[in-house]
């Protein structure tokens, strides 16, 4: 596989990990009940950091394979995963402006990809 395509796959995987970490951190800020609050806060917080740490390694591997100015813009894709995860796991809804933004990000990333070797 070409280095560039491998870099893209790796950075996309990173963005998924990044979104998952943010979701876990969001969970860690909520508590079910006061008595077990400390434990729940702690577990989700730690899980979030572990997830982000793994993601960071994947991101560095992506940088090994691709140019920074090509790889970095792909990070914006995490906004899309965060939006989807928020709908699925947090019961949130996305306004029309949010969907427009997601489309703009996808277009932007594809333009960067087109302009990169």
């Amino acid at each position, binding site marked *: 596989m070409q280095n560039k395509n491998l870099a893209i796959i790796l950075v996309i995987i990173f963005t998924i990990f990044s979104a998952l970490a943010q979701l876990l951190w969001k969970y860690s800020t909520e508590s079910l009940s006061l008595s077990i609050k400390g434990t729940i806060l702690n577990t989700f917080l730690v899980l979030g950091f572990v997830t982000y740490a793994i993601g*960071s*390694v994947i*991101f*560095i*591997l992506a*940088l*090994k394979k691709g*140019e*920074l*100015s*090509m790889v*970095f*813009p792909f990070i*914006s894709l995490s*906004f899309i995963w965060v*939006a989807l995860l928020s709908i699925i796991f947090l019961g949130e809804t996305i306004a029309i*402006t*949010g969907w*427009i*933004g*997601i*489309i*703009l*990000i*996808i*277009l*932007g*990333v*594809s*333009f*960067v*990809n*087109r*302009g*990169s070797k």
Partner: protein
Amino acid sequence: MNLGIILPLMVVATLLGAFGSLLLKKGSAEFELKIPSIIKNWKIILGLFLYVLASVIFIWLLKTSKLSFLYPFTALSYVWVSFLSVKFLGENMNAWKWLGIVFIIAGIVFVSI
């Protein structure tokens, strides 16, 4: 807290993050999935540290402003990285990549509001 403090701090935070990414890129060439190697990779360590510093500034600023207001400024990172890549990594920017950055920034603004 007034904009005269918040905005410059966001510029600082995004610059730190951009320089952190630059260091991660430089350090990635020697990166190996072995702990002894990672510990000696000062570029990776410093790069991660700058990232953490940038995040700390951002999280601190969240005490003063709404996420929907601050988040769009994080898009500045993409601009800084584009310039830093050209200056320090010998990479090239072109019309497609700049157009992409513009769309991404616009997208982030729309997603945040």
